[in-house]
């Protein structure tokens, strides 16, 4: 098991907002009665005049953020992933995406590792919903260090963006120096390998790294890609990996439909690339309450299953 330092990406978000709030006087933050959970409360305490509590009224919050963006503000909007996307799809569509508004939706509590709250709160469709939205950039940071850097990029680059992190503490993968040059839309090759490529996003990147170590012991050389940006997808990197290794596994804490796995499949198919391929994710079902690790085991989303799938498809 990992002995890596555990840090919550939500805290990294809160800290990044404070730092960016100092630099960008036009940065504002909106939340829907979840600021203690999303950690926007950190910004609220530091810059109360630029924090807007919108109450349990998410639809209004999204359109309000768009109105603020039309006045030159950089609004960061936060709530749980399930409320930040599905509940407000139409508001995002009209007021943010169609209007090309400079609004940044930063959602927490994405995926099934939300745990005991159950399927009502386990958002496994958000990446797909946001990916079909024209003009929208879709991101799933993998650890706290990367989250901090990505929040900065979101603030400093123009356009509608959606990012999601999980609820739980997550093992630290990166040092600051590892992420200082990352670019939205460019995947990170964090382990090189020749036999198989594991393209992971968000909370599945760390298990992919663990799986890489385990596969090494089995004499399988795995390449690991941290695909933090799901849209625009780094198609060149996907094609390169497909050509240089003998198979691809995608891993995401999300439905296998429409998210990272769907996006990679589309790239492979449209480029006439025939390769061994498997999408790891939630396979078109709603999950259930339970401890996060228990659920990740039950729904086959951990390093053990990455290893199994890698061995299986390479056979």
């Amino acid at each position, binding site marked *: 098991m990992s002995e890596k330092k555990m840090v919550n990406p939500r805290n990294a978000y809160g800290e990044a907002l404070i730092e960016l709030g100092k630099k960008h006087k036009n940065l504002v933050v909106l939340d829907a009665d979840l600021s203690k959970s999303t950690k926007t409360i950190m910004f609220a305490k530091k810059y109360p005049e630029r924090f807007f509590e919108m109450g349990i009224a998410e639809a209004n919050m999204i359109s309000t953020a768009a109105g603020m963006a*039309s006045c030159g503000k950089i609004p960061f909007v936060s709530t749980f992933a399930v409320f930040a996307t599905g509940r407000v799809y139409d508001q995002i569509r009209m007021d943010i995406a169609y*209007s090309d508004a400079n609004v940044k939706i930063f959602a927490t509590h994405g995926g099934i590792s939300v745990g005991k709250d159950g399927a009502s709160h386990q958002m496994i469709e958000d990446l797909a919903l946001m990916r079909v939205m024209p003009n929208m950039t879709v991101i799933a940071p993998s650890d706290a260090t990367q989250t901090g850097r990505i929040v900065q990029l979101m603030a400093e680059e123009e356009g509608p963006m959606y990012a999601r992190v999980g609820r739980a503490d997550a093992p630290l993968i990166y040092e600051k120096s590892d992420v200082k040059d990352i670019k939205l839309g460019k995947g990170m090759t964090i382990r090189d390998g020749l036999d198989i490529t594991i393209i992971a996003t968000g909370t599945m990147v760390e298990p992919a790294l663990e799986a890489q170590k385990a596969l090494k012991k089995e004499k399988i050389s795995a390449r690991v890609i941290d695909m933090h940006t799901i849209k625009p997808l780094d198609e060149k990197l996907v094609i390169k990996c497909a050509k240089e290794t003998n198979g691809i596994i995608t891993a995401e804490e999300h439905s296998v439909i429409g998210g990272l796995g769907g996006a990679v499949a589309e790239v492979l198919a449209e480029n006439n690339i025939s390769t061994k391929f498997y999408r790891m994710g939630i396979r078109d079902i709603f999950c259930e309450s339970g401890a996060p690790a228990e659920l990740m085991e039950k729904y086959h989303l951990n390093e053990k299953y990455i290893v199994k799938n890698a061995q299986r498809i390479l056979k």
Partner: protein
Amino acid sequence: MKDYDGKNINELELTAVKVRKHIIEMLYRAKSGHPGGSLSAVDALVALYFAHMKFNPKKPCDPNRDRFILSKGHAAPALYAVLAESGYFDIKELKNLREANCMLQGHPVCTYVPGVEASTGSLGHGLSFANGVALAGKLDKKDYQVYCMMGDGETGEGQIWEAAAVASHYKLDNITGMVDRNFLQIDGNTEDVLSLEPVNERWKSFGWHVLEVNGHNYKEILRALKKADAYKKKPTLIVLNTTKGKGVSFMENNVDFHGVPPNEMERNLAIKELTIAEKRLEALI
């Protein structure tokens, strides 16, 4: 003759007739669109753009401009005609409503048309957008006012009431909401489809300052707009009592003209009626 607050009402009414003629021509050419709710909204729009709001059509992004948000986006022809008459873009562009490769989409889009503040058409969003503009205005200590017109049927959308609650919570006195109370929506009378009464009391109970006017009477509209600007600590909602299809006799209070354009005969008849009104007003000025 300046008959109200330095404004010549006949001139405003003449502008409104021109706007109504544009609407009829636009919808006739486009062979689709929404005459009824466009015509009912015209007088409030003309009052705002020709006698009340501060803006410069040459600088549509001026940070100090007053903002108008058409939440009932299907009244786009009325907004487009008023923007063109105000100088935001060439009046000739109006004939291309709903045509491919043209700027004027079926519903307003802020990235396409100078002067359009918000992309609307899916009902219920505009007041929330207005909240954002108003909050930004307070934050930046700007003195602009944000005007948002909603349809009466549109207020069936739950988001309107989220926005109403937030506007009063934040004491957004720089918002003036307007409800185009024409009593008709696609499926019939608003009180049969989903009753809205008591409209004034609903808004009052959400913490709004409420005014009610004849939405085709310029003195009343302008007086209410002025009062709303001056009212502090609460947002103001102006109930505009209007007639759907106003200005064209056979369209008035006729729900069949909610979303159906005039055919050739109807267009000729409408233009004839409006031209008579136009000549009469010209003679009075």
